[in-house]
C-alpha cells in the first residue's frame, strides 16, 4: 500500500519537476533551435518543425560578419591570463592564511586609530590637490599623493589578524562597480584625462583603454577575493603536518608551495579555476564600458546585436549559442563545486 502510493507520488513528482525544468531551460532550447533555421523560418509562428529546412549557414554568416573567432580569442586571453595571474597572487596568500594564520593583529593600534590615520591621509591628499589647483602639478606629486593614501590603507589591511583580513578581502568583492567606474574609466581612457598634465611624462601615450593590459589585471582584481577565499577553504582541508614535514626536510618556500601544496590541492585549485572561468567569461559591466574593439570579449560581441539590421534572429541565436555553449558545458560539470565559492562559505 505504502509502496504503491510512493510510486504514484514519484510519477507526479517526476512530471512536475520535468515540466519546471524544461520551462526554465526553454529559452536556451528555443535559441538553439532558432540558430539552425533560416531567417524567415525563425520568425514564423507557430513553428513547423517537420517541414523546416535545417541549416548551418548562420554560424558561417556570424563569423563572416562579426568575426566570432576574434572575440572568443579575446575572451580566452582575458579569462586564462587573469586566472593564471589570480592564482599566482592567491596561492601564496591562501597558503599564508591557511597554514600560518595570525591569531592577533600584528599592529598595536586600535581600529579607530587606523581609521583616523587613513582619513587623515585622505585629507592630506585633498589638501595637496587643493594647493596644486586640483591637478597634481607633476608625476612626482601625483605619485606621492597616491602613496600617502595607499600605504596606510595597505598597512592597515596587512596587519589584520587572518580572520579579519579574509573578511576584508571578501568585502572588496562587494564594492559596487558604479563606485569605481569613473576613476577606472578615466585612468583607462584614451585621452589620459586624469593624468595628462603631468609634466615630464605624458601618460596619455600609455592608454590601456580597450587593451589586454587593462582588462587582464582588472579581471584578476575583480575575482581575486573569490579565488583567495575558495583556495583558503580547500587548503584548510590539508593537514598542516605534511607541509611541516616538507619544511623539516629542508624544502624551500617555493618547493613547499609548488611541489607539495599545489599537487595536493589540485582538485580544489581546479574548481576554483572553473568558477573564475565562469565569472569572467560572463562579466559584462566592465567589458561593455571599457572595451569596444581590440580587447572586446564575447559579452560585447553579443551586445552589438542589440541594434538590429533587417532580419537577424537566426544569426543572433547562432551567435548566442556560440557565446554560451562552452561555458554552459563547463558549468554543468562543475555545478556541485560552485556552491562553496558562490556563498563566500556562509552556507555549509
Amino acid at each position: 500500500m505504502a509502496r504503491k502510493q510512493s510510486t504514484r507520488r514519484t510519477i507526479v513528482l517526476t512530471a512536475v519537476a520535468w515540466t519546471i525544468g524544461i520551462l526554465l531551460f526553454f529559452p536556451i532550447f528555443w535559441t538553439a533551435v532558432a540558430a539552425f533555421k533560416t531567417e524567415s523560418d525563425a520568425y514564423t509562428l507557430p513553428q513547423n518543425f517537420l517541414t523546416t529546412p535545417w541549416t548551418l549557414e548562420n554560424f558561417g554568416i556570424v563569423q563572416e560578419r562579426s568575426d566570432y573567432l576574434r572575440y572568443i580569442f579575446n575572451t580566452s586571453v582575458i579569462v586564462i591570463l587573469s586566472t593564471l595571474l589570480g592564482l599566482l597572487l592567491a596561492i601564496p596568500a591562501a597558503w599564508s592564511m591557511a597554514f600560518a594564520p595570525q591569531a592577533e593583529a600584528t599592529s598595536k593600534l586600535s581600529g579607530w586609530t587606523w581609521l583616523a590615520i587613513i582619513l587623515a591621509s585622505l585629507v592630506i591628499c585633498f589638501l595637496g590637490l587643493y594647493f596644486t589647483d586640483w591637478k597634481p602639478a607633476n608625476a612626482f606629486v601625483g605619485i606621492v599623493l597616491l602613496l600617502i593614501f595607499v600605504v596606510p590603507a595597505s598597512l592597515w589591511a596587512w596587519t589584520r589578524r587572518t580572520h579579519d583580513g579574509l573578511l576584508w578581502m571578501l568585502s572588496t568583492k562587494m564594492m559596487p562597480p558604479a563606485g569605481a567606474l569613473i576613476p577606472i574609466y578615466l585612468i583607462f581612457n584614451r585621452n589620459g584625462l586624469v593624468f595628462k598634465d603631468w609634466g615630464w611624462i605624458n601618460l596619455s601615450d600609455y592608454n590601456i583603454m580597450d587593451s589586454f593590459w587593462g582588462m587582464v589585471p582588472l579581471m584578476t582584481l575583480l575575482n581575486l577575493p573569490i579565488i583567495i577565499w575558495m583556495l583558503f577553504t580547500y587548503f584548510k582541508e590539508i593537514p598542516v603536518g605534511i607541509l611541516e614535514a616538507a619544511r623539516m626536510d629542508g624544502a624551500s618556500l617555493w618547493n613547499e608551495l609548488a611541489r607539495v601544496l599545489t599537487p595536493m590541492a589540485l582538485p580544489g585549485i581546479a574548481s576554483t579555476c572553473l568558477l573564475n572561468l565562469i565569472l569572467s567569461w560572463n562579466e559584462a559591466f566592465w567589458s561593455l564600458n571599457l572595451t569596444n574593439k581590440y580587447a572586446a570579449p564575447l559579452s560585447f560581441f553579443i551586445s552589438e546585436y542589440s541594434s538590429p539590421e533587417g532580419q537577424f534572429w537566426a544569426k543572433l541565436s547562432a551567435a548566442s549559442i556560440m557565446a554560451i555553449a562552452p561555458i554552459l558545458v563547463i558549468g554543468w560539470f562543475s555545478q556541485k563545486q560552485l556552491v562553496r565559492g558562490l556563498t563566500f562559505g556562509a552556507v555549509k
Partner: protein
Amino acid sequence: MATRQAQALGRLALAPSVIALAAWSFVPLALTIYFAFLRYNLQDPDNTGWAGFSNFYYFFKDPYFLKDLINTLLLVGSVIVTTVVGGVLLALLLDQPFWGRGIVRLLMISPFFIMPTVSSLVWKNLIMHPVFGLLAGIQRLFGAHQPIDWFGTYPRFSVALIVSWQWLPYAALILLTALQSLDEEQKDAAAMDGAPPLSYFYHIVLPHLARPITVVILIETIFLLNIFAEIKVTSVGGFAGNLTYLVFSQLNDATDVGMAAAGGLVAVVLANIVSAFLVRMVGKNLEA
C-alpha cells in the same frame, strides 16, 4: 604550530594580494570621492575647480535620481521575492526522489551560466517581441489581436523577469545544498511522529533554511544593485534605469564626471549597508 619564521614568511606571501586589493578597493573610492567634489565635465575642460556639495545637490535634484532609485529598489525587491520563494519551492522539489533528478537539476541551473547580454537579447527578441515573439504567438493562439508589447509597456517588469530567470537557479542551488545538510535523524523522527507536511516544513525545514535564505538575500542584493547589462542591452534605460545605469549615463551621455562620481558614492553607500550585514554573517562561519 607554525613557527615564528613561517609566520614572517606568511606575512610576506600575503603582501602582494593585500597591496593589489587595497589599491583596487581604496584608490578608485578615494578618486570617486575626489571627483564628486569637483567641477569636471569632459565637454567643458575649462570649467574646473572645487564644487563643494553642488554635484550632490544637482544629482539629488535630477528627476531621474528618484525614479532610478525607486527602480533600483523595485528591481532588487521583486527579484529577491521571486527567486527566494521560487528557490525554496524548487529546492524542496529537487530534494524529493524522482526519475531523472540529475538532468532536471542541470536544466534548472543552466540560466545561471548564460551571460547577461545573451539572456537580455534572447528574451527581448525571441520570447517577448510584440509581433514575432513566442509570448505574442501564444497570446494570438488564445485570440488576442494586440499582443502585449512587453518592453514597451512594462519595461521594469520585463527586466525583472529576465533577471529573476538568471538568479532563480542561484537561489535554488544554494538552498538545495542547505536542504541536503538537514539532519537525517530529524527527518526520520518527524516522519515517525507522523508530522503533516506543512507543519514539518514550517517547524523543521524553514528554521533550517533561515540562515541560507538570509545569505542568498544579502548576496543577491549586492549583485542586483549592480544590474547593468540587462538594462543597457535592451535599451530601456530611460524607463527602467537603475542607479548603476544612471551613473553610466551621467558619465557617457552627459559626460559630467563630478555628477557621476556623486552618484557612484550613493551606490557605494547603498551597497555598504547590505555588505555590513553580509560580512558579519560570513564572519560568524569563518574559522580562521
